[in-house]
C-alpha cells in the first residue's frame, strides 16, 4: 500500500462565527492523508466536522489554519473552478437542477467544457447505463419526475461526467429509505468505473462506511479520533466510546466480511 497521496490535510483548522458572534471551531488541526484510488469515509456524529472537511477539499470553504494539498499542490494555489472540475461532487439531495432534464444535468459540465453535442450525448448515455438507468426512458425526464434513488443515481452520473480522478460525496444515500439505500450502496460498490478513483465519502452511518470504505476517518468534535481500516476499527478502537459505537454495527456484529 504505497500508493501516492491524492489528498492531504495538514493541521487544517476551521473556525466559524456562530449565530451570536462567538467563534465555533468546526475543525481543530486535522491531519489526514488519502492515497490515490482509496475510498475514505469521514464518519462521526452530526456536527463533528465531516461536511466542513469535505468542503475544504474543493474549496467551498477555506481553512483558517493549516493547508490542503491536492495531488501534491496547495489547493489554495489552484484555480477553484479547475480544482472542482477535477473532483466530482455529490450531495445528499442530489442537487440536480430542476429546470434541466436528466441529460442536460449530466452533460452540463461537458457542455461548459466545450465538448461537441454528439460526444456529450454519447457520454450521457454511457453514464446513464453506468448508474443503471435506461437512457432511452430517462434521458429526457426532469428531476421532479424521478424517485429519490433515481435522482441520486443521476447525481453520481453527473459527478462522473468529466471522469474526474476524485469524487467527493456528502451523505449521498442519507435521504433514501433503507431498501433503496441498500440497493444504491451495493450498486455503487460494484461500479467498475470507481475502482481507480479517490473517493471521500461523508457518512454518519457506520454500516455504510464499513461497506464502502477502504479506510475510515472517525471524527469527534472537530478532531480526528482514529483513521484506520474497518477491520482495525473493530479490533482496536481508539477509545471506549468508539468501541461502543463500532459494536452497534450490523457488519461488525455479523463478522468482518466488509
Amino acid at each position, binding site marked *: 500500500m504505497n500508493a501516492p497521496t491524492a489528498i492531504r490535510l495538514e493541521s487544517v483548522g476551521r473556525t466559524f462565527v456562530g449565530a451570536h458572534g462567538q467563534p465555533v471551531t468546526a475543525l481543530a488541526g486535522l491531519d489526514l492523508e488519502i492515497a490515490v484510488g482509496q475510498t475514505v469515509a469521514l464518519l462521526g456524529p452530526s456536527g463533528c466536522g465531516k461536511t466542513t472537511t469535505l*468542503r475544504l477539499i474543493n474549496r467551498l470553504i477555506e481553512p483558517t489554519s493549516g493547508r490542503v494539498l491536492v495531488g501534491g499542490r496547495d489547493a489554495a494555489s489552484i484555480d477553484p473552478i479547475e480544482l*472542482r*472540475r477535477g473532483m466530482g461532487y455529490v*450531495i445528499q439531495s442530489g*442537487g440536480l*437542477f430542476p*429546470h434541466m432534464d436528466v441529460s442536460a444535468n449530466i452533460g452540463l459540465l461537458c457542455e461548459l467544457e466545450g465538448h461537441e453535442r454528439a460526444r456529450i450525448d454519447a457520454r450521457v448515455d454511457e453514464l446513464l447505463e453506468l448508474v443503471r438507468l435506461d437512457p432511452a426512458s430517462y434521458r429526457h425526464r*426532469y428531476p421532479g419526475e424521478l424517485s429519490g434513488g433515481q435522482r441520486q443515481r443521476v447525481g453520481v452520473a453527473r459527478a462522473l461526467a468529466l471522469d474526474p480522478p476524485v469524487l467527493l460525496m456528502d451523505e449521498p444515500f442519507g435521504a433514501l429509505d433503507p431498501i433503496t439505500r441498500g440497493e444504491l450502496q451495493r450498486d455503487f460498490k460494484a461500479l467498475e468505473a470507481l475502482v481507480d478513483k479517490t473517493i471521500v465519502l461523508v457518512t454518519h452511518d457506520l454500516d455504510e462506511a464499513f461497506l464502502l470504505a477502504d479506510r475510515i476517518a472517525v471524527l469527534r468534535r472537530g478532531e480526528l479520533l482514529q483513521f484506520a481500516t474497518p477491520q482495525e476499527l473493530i479490533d482496536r478502537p481508539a477509545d471506549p466510546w468508539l468501541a461502543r459505537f463500532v459494536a452497534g454495527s450490523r457488519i461488525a456484529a455479523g463478522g468482518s466480511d466488509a
Partner: protein
Amino acid sequence: MRELLAAAFAALSVVALPGQSSSAPAAQRFVVASKNFTESAILAEMIALTVAEHTALQVEHKTGLGGTMICFEALRQGDIDCYPDYTGTGWAIVLKEPAKISDPLRAFTHVQRRYRELYDIEWMAPFGLQNSYALAMREAQADALGVVTISDLVAHAPELRAAFSIEFHDREDGWAGLRAHYGLRFAEVRPMEHGLAYEALAGEVVDVIDAYTTDGKLPRYHLRTLRDDRGFFPPYHAAPLVRGEVLRAHPELRTALGRLAYVLDDATMTGLNYEVEEKGRMVRDVAREFLQSRDVLGPGGVSRPEVTRSALLPFLWDRRWQTLWLIGEHLYLSLLAVLLAAAFAVPLGIAIRDRRFAERLALGAAGVVQTIPSLALLMFLIAIPGFGLSERSAIFALFLYALLPILRNTVTGLRGVDPVLVDAATGIGLTPAQILRRVQLPLAVPTIMAGVRTATVIGIGVATLAAFIGAGGLGGPIVQGLYLNDVNLILAGAIPAALLALLADRALGFVERRLAPKG
C-alpha cells in the same frame, strides 16, 4: 374634492381640430392650450376656432394642461403657442409683483410690457370679461336689502352670515384684506368648502359667500355678485397670450385674434360657463355658437362634424380607426416604457443580489417613486428642460412606475433560488457567471416575468394619463369625455384601455407559463 378631480381630469384632455396633422411642418402649426377649468377651455376653444377660420394655420387645442405655471412654462419653452390668461394672475403669480394693484388698465399695460421684455410673450387684446374674486348673495335677498356693491353690504353685514372658501378665508388678499378695506363685520364667518358654500347659500344657511365673477353656478342658484366699488380685488381681465416669435412669423394672427377683442363681458361669460358646467353641453359647441352669434365665425363655422350623443355602439364603430390608432399609441407608450424598465431593472436586480444594503436602497428608491401620484410625477417631469410636454416625459414616468415591480421580482426571484442548488453548482465547478446564467436566472424567470406582467398592466393603466401632457393614447378620449361631459367619449377610451390591460395580463401570463422551467 370634486373640483380637484374635475381639475385633474380636465387637465388631461387633448382636443384636436380637424385638419390637424402631426406631420404638418412645425411652423405651420398653432397650438392653443388651456388651463384646467371650464372658462379657460371655452376661451381657448374660441381662440382655436377663430385662428382656424381666419388663418391658414393648422390649429391644435390642448385642453386643460394644468395650472398657470404649467401653461406659462409650456408657452415660454415653445411647446404651445398660445393660451388665455388673466392680468391679475400674470401680475401676482408669474411676475410676482409685490404691490397690490386695482387699476385694470395699469395692470394690463404693466403685464403686457413686462412679458414682452422678459419672455417675448405678447398679451393680445382682452376678451372683455373679468373673472375676479367677488362676494355673492341670493338675488332675492340682495334686492330686498338693496345691495348692489360691497359698500352697500357694510351696513347690513352685522345681521348676515358668511361662508368663505378655505383659500379665500385664509389669504391676506382675501377675507382679511377685504374686511379691513371696507370695514366689513359679519354676524358669523366660517370657512367652508367652495362647492358646499353654494348649497349653504341657496339653502339660506348662510347669506354671503365668495365667488368668481363669471362663475357658471351663479345663474343656477340665482345669485348676485356685488360690485367691488372701492377696488379691493385685483383685476383679472382675460386675454390671449401668444409667443412673440409666432406673431412675427404670422402677423395675420393679430388681425384674427383682434376679432375676439371685447366680444365678452362677465355676464355673457357666466352664461357660457353655465351652459357647459351646469347644462353639460360641450365646450366646442358653446364656443362656436357664441362666435357665430357675434359673426366672428361664419354660420357654418369651421366645418367640423357635429358630435351628437348617439348610441354607444354606433359611436364606437364610427371611431374604430381612430381607436385603433390610439391603441397603437397607447401600446407604444406603455410597452416601450416597460421594455426600458426591464432592460434597466433586471440587470440592476442582478447586480445588487446578495448585497443587502444596495438592495434596500434600490428597492426603497423605486418604492418612493411608486408612491408619487401619477399626475404629480408628470407635472414634475414636464418642468425639466428637455422633457416638457412630450412623449418622452410620459414614457419616462411610465418607466419609473414599471421599475419597482420588475426590480422587486428580479431580486426575490433570484433570492428564491434554493441555496442548495447554488451550492451544488459551485461545487461541481461552475463560475459565478455560469451559475447566474444556467441556474439562477432560468429559475427566476417566472418571477421576473410576473413582475413584467404587473408592470405592463400598471403601465397600460397609467398610460391613460399620458393624454394629460399631450402624449396621446387612450387617455385622450377618456379625459376629453370627462371634461366635455360626454360619456360615449369616456367609454371610447376606457373600454379599449380596460380590454388592453386584460389582454396584456392574459398574454403575458401565457408567456410566463411558456418560459417557466419544466419539471
